[in-house]
């Protein structure tokens, strides 16, 4: 297809690089440098979508980020992305794009019946209609979502990868237009570390869309090139194009997204698709430009009705005529610039319809001089044309009534270029919590005082003349650098110079005068994306929604993916006028990040798959893997859960492991237990304070079990602490609590007891810890640690000694979590695997059996040993656990006073007991609730719950631990466990120690 609307020359496109693309199944050509919108317009395509609610035909409105209509589904399959603005999509060869919100096709769309039905679809329609019955909302929603617009989320996982990075700078400049470039140059020359972020593919901003502009006496393009070169030559300056600063948060934290490969035809695999920048800037220069406003008149939404400056940009930047015959409709001088540039490009400009009774201004004068047909004091009061605007009707405005008189002229056209003035892009400024103020002369909100280290410059600051933009940018960059602590610029350079034409003078009319009563004669759209009309706003006000925030939510104006970039100020103006208030009284709605939508991929970054969360592995992990262990996540650790042999079920494997530890020899990797090295002369007293029991008399070479409470008296950790030397101890903690316990101890030392001479250092990872348990543990160790005296006299239960095991320096502790004769062997972590191999080899004669966490749980449950976090839940005291024996009556410790509170002494507190089900085969589910009497249906009074439950192969039956109200007084009684499946298990309350209550197995 020919690009029949492409100008024969000019523009910033690369005519040597022709690119083929496809839109809605048809093939087109464009050039490198085009956006999708520019290339479509070059091919005469205006109709690009259907509107959200009424399914009206819509065309390209703008040439930038504010585009409400031209939302595109880009790409296919898992890479498909919805709701992208055609005005920002850079054209690449082979690009596949589809229009959205139409079925079965763009030109014939069934949903367009909504337009015919619009009388019954007023604002608030959904609220009013689907209120009742509330339970039906899910059904309504299903249908509504299907009928509603916007594109489709991609199916399948995202095949691309994304990057995230932190960044820092002295001065962030947002926007690479004239003000931003001047700011970056000034800050960079002052030696500041500058990041310049420009969302477009190129620097220049509004200059790219102009023609004949000069700065410092040279053409704008040359000035931009010189600025680009100067910035590139400064080491401390980074220029990021295709980078959108989308959010401005506290303490000058700016979130930006960089499109790294989206614009490349061939996407190099090593590059991320996009990158999230988490930037901390000392100072920010906002040079975000301004957005042209549409005019609100009847049927102002037809394809071919565009923003005037966009038409100008398409001519000058992309060498595209938007159409053949144009009418320009403006309320300000700026509209004439567009008319002149279009006329220069060969567009037949039929007329400039000007709301102002006395058009004036430099561009107006040039248009007059060139003989353009100007219709002063006139308004477009209606349009026609289904898939493209065909005609506009113009009426004279009656200065007395402020209404338009009957149509005076009907003009054929295929373009209606409108300009309703300009709105500074305040989004980031507002997100930074800066307050905005209304500027009557500009007819727009402008930045007030900044709330953070932000400097606004250029059009976003209400400066629309080029000279003002450059001067403000220069000053903002210089000041920002100074405020960031940089020395004043060595150059003392002046701001770049240029002519200073803005778009004023103008005459504001938030809604264009009409020849019909309000709401008649066609829809006057305010918000194109959400199909909100001026009449909808008035309806909301009539129905009592007077706060602008309520009007916004009720009508959904400004709530589309464009967040009302083109609509908000018009909406506020119409609301103010209807209510008879001033605009500042009405106020603005909140600007929220992101400025334009960003993809979820950037937030995931590389935190996906194997890098989702750290997987902590012990030095012996590779052996476990090769042995086919099933792993259990314990915090971030991977621990062997059980070691199934071929064909074994989990139940069989665990039974085998449990039996082996009792009958011969089990071996377990216990490396993950927390280990804290404690040194200092006050350590014994320190332990006295943090544990419930007394530590003063623990001898060197001996170990003691401790319970740690919080201030409320609740158990938070337990473990064995060994005294290694006079002032040297080694504490062990539960796996999950290693870091919190260390932090707690450090906090006590630093804040409560700074006078104590105690130093705590984590050595969890310094040692690999292997436990061997069972009757053959001692014979095996004797063989591998020949020079160590393992006699009970030399190394009794709860003793620790240094020695060499299999030639490796080790600490050997005779402690037991299984109730068996058991040794914990600590060796340097790097020797863990070697130790394991040595033990496995030498232990073969005892059929040494690796066991995992599940067997460990069964073994300890047989002995009634608690697991913190399983029997306890933060509301359990040592007394509740029947562990009074470990609570010192003499000394003070953390949590002691709490234990004497009346509530702690109540006899009906939940207490630890054992449970035996009547049927020995029945294994209670953990968490099962216990009752005295089963009622026909819940609720029924509950007296406790099952905390641990297993099949015990050593006892040949099921066992369970439970927390039951007044449990210790219920020994021998029966309790009932009604299960979810309707059955009830009858259980007897017994001692929690099921096996070897005398502890004879711990000894020879």
């Amino acid at each position, binding site marked *: 297809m020919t690009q029949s609307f492409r100008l024969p020359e000019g523009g910033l496109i690369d005519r040597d690089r022709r690119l083929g693309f496809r839109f809605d199944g048809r093939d087109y050509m464009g050039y490198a440098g085009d956006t999708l919108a520019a290339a479509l317009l070059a091919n005469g395509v205006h109709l690009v979508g259907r509107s959200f609610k009424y399914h009206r035909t819509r065309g390209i409105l703008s040439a930038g980020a504010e585009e409400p209509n031209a939302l595109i589904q880009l790409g296919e399959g898992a890479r498909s992305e919805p709701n992208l603005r055609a005005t920002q999509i850079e054209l690449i060869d082979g690009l596949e794009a589809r229009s959205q919100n139409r079925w079965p096709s763009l030109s014939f769309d069934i949903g367009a019946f909504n337009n015919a039905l619009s009388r019954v679809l007023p604002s608030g329609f959904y609220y009013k209609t689907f209120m009742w019955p509330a339970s039906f909302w899910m059904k309504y929603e299903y249908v509504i979502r299907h009928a509603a617009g916007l594109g489709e989320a991609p199916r399948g996982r995202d095949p691309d990868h994304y*990057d995230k990075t932190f960044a820092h700078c002295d001065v962030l400049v947002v926007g690479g237009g004239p003000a931003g470039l001047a700011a970056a140059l000034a800050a960079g020359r002052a030696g500041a570390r500058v990041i310049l972020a420009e969302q477009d593919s190129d620097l220049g901003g509004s200059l790219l869309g102009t023609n004949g502009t000069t700065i410092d006496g040279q053409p704008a393009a040359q000035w931009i090139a010189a600025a680009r070169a100067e910035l590139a030559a400064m080491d401390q300056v980074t220029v990021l194009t295709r980078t959108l600063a989308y959010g401005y948060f506290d303490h000058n934290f700016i979130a930006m997204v960089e499109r790294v490969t989206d614009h490349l035809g061939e996407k190099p695999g090593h590059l991320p698709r996009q990158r999230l920048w988490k930037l901390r800037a000392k100072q920010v220069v906002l040079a975000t430009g301004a957005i042209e406003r549409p005019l609100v008149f009847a049927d102002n939404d037809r394809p071919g009705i565009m923003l005037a400056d966009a038409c100008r940009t398409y001519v000058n930047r992309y060498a595209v005529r938007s159409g053949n015959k144009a009418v320009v409709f403006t309320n300000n001088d700026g509209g004439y610039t567009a008319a002149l540039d279009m006329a220069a490009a060969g567009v037949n400009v039929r007329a400039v319809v000007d709301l102002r009774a006395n058009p004036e201004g430099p561009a107006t004068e040039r248009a007059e001089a060139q003989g353009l047909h100007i219709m002063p004091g006139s308004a477009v009061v209606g349009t026609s044309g289904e898939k493209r605007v065909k005609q506009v009707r113009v009426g004279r405005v009656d200065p007395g009534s402020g209404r338009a008189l009957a149509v005076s002229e009907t003009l054929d056209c295929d373009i209606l270029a409108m300009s309703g003035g300009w709105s500074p892009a305040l989004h980031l400024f507002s997100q930074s919590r800066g307050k905005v103020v209304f500027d009557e002369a500009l007819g727009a909100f402008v930045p007030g005082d900044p709330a953070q280290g932000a400097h606004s410059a250029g059009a976003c600051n209400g400066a629309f003349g080029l000279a003002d933009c450059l001067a403000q940018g220069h000053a903002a960059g210089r000041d920002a650098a100074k405020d960031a602590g940089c020395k004043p610029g060595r150059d003392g350079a002046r701001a770049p110079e240029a002519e200073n034409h803005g778009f004023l003078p103008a005459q504001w009319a938030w809604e264009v005068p009409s020849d019909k009563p309000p709401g008649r004669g066609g829809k006057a759209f305010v918000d194109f994306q959400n199909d909100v009309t001026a009449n909808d706003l008035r309806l909301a006000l009539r129905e009592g929604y007077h706060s602008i925030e309520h009007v916004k939510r009720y009508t959904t104006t400004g709530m589309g993916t464009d967040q009302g970039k083109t609509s908000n100020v018009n909406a506020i103006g119409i609301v103010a006028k209807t209510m008879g208030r001033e605009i500042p009284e009405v106020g603005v709605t909140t600007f929220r990040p992101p400025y334009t939508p960003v993809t979820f991929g950037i937030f995931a970054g590389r935190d996906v798959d194997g890098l989702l*969360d*750290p997987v902590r*592995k012990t030095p012996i992990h590779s052996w476990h893997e090769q042995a086919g262990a099933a792993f259990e996540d314990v915090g971030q650790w991977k621990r062997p859960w059980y070691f199934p042999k071929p064909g074994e079920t989990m139940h069989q494997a665990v039974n085998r492991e449990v039996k082996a530890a009792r009958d011969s020899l089990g071996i377990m990797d216990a490396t993950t237990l927390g280990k804290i090295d404690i040194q200092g002369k006050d350590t014994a007293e320190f332990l006295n304070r943090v544990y419930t029991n007394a530590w003063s008399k623990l001898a060197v070479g001996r170990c003691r079990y401790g319970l740690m409470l919080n201030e409320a008296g609740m158990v938070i950790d337990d473990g064995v602490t060994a005294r290694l030397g006079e002032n040297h101890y080694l504490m062990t903690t539960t796996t999950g609590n290693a870091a919190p316990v260390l932090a707690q101890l450090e906090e006590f030392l630093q804040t409560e007891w700074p006078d104590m*001479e105690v130093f705590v250092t984590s050595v969890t990872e310094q040692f690999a810890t292997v436990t061997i348990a069972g009757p053959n543990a001692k014979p095996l160790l004797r063989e591998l640690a020949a020079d160590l005296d393992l006699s009970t006299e030399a190394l009794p239960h709860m003793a620790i000694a240094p020695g060499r095991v*299999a030639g490796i320096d080790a600490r050997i502790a005779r402690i037991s979590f299984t109730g068996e004769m058991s040794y914990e062997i600590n060796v340097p972590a790097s*020797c863990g695997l070697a130790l394991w191999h040595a033990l496995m080899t030498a232990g073969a004669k005892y059929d040494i059996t690796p066991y995992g966490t599940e067997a460990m749980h069964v073994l300890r449950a047989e002995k009634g040993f608690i697991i913190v976090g399983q029997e306890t839940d933060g509301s359990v005291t040592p007394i509740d656990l029947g562990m009074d024996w470990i609570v010192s009556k003499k000394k003070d410790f953390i949590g002691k006073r709490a234990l004497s509170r009346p509530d702690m002494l109540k006899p009906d507190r939940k207490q630890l007991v054992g449970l035996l089900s009547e049927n020995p085969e029945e294994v209670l589910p953990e968490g099962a609730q216990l009752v005295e009497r089963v009622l026909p249906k819940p609720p029924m009074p509950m007296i406790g719950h099952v905390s641990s439950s297993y099949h015990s192969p050593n006892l040949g039956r099921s066992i369970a631990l439970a927390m039951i109200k007044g449990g210790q007084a219920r020994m021998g009684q029966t309790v009932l466990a009604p299960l979810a499946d309707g059955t009830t298990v009858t259980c007897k309350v017994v001692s929690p120690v099921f096996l070897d209550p005398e502890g004879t197995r711990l000894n020879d």
Partner: protein
Amino acid sequence: MIESYLRQSPLAHLALAAHGPGSGKPAGVHMAERPFPGLVNLRGPGDNANFHGAFKAAAGYDLPVEAGATAGSANTTALWLGPGEWLILDARGGPKSGPRIAESLRAALAGISAAVTDISESRACIRISGAKARAVLQKGCPLDFHPRHFAQGQCAQSVLARAAILLHMTPDETAADGPAFDVYVARSFAEYTWRWLEDAAREFGVARGER
């Protein structure tokens, strides 16, 4: 000795043989495990002249007292970790260097309120260097790595992605080679950290092995 040939460095199981970035591209980043550094945690009264004097007598240099500062001799380097806390390291020390440093410090500090703890086994050391080393670290660590803010010889405790790290910008690289950092991370996090760094460095080209 069984120890010397069966010792496993934290990343030994990954079999990280040296290789280039592939397809003839230059490597923006070099990554290597530095196995068996000697690392000793030293706690003591930072305001006590006897303590500082005893350390200097043993080590031959003053303990650094500024945040993030380091000091050292040909044998060891002291990294400031916090008020009253240092890491004494010998990056190329070998398996026995930690215990050796600890022993000599304990002897030197006898009678002074201080704690000396060998933690050599508990950390992995990953050396990352090259022109893009800063950019790679910056992806996961919120500190500012600009040369104006993070200089040769400086150290800091921070995070890299989801792992706690100690970072040391080593002084033994010339500016021409680009910066070099030693990333110390808890042993169990070593594989995660290595894989994360390698993935983050992919766009710059990664060579395995020290430069």
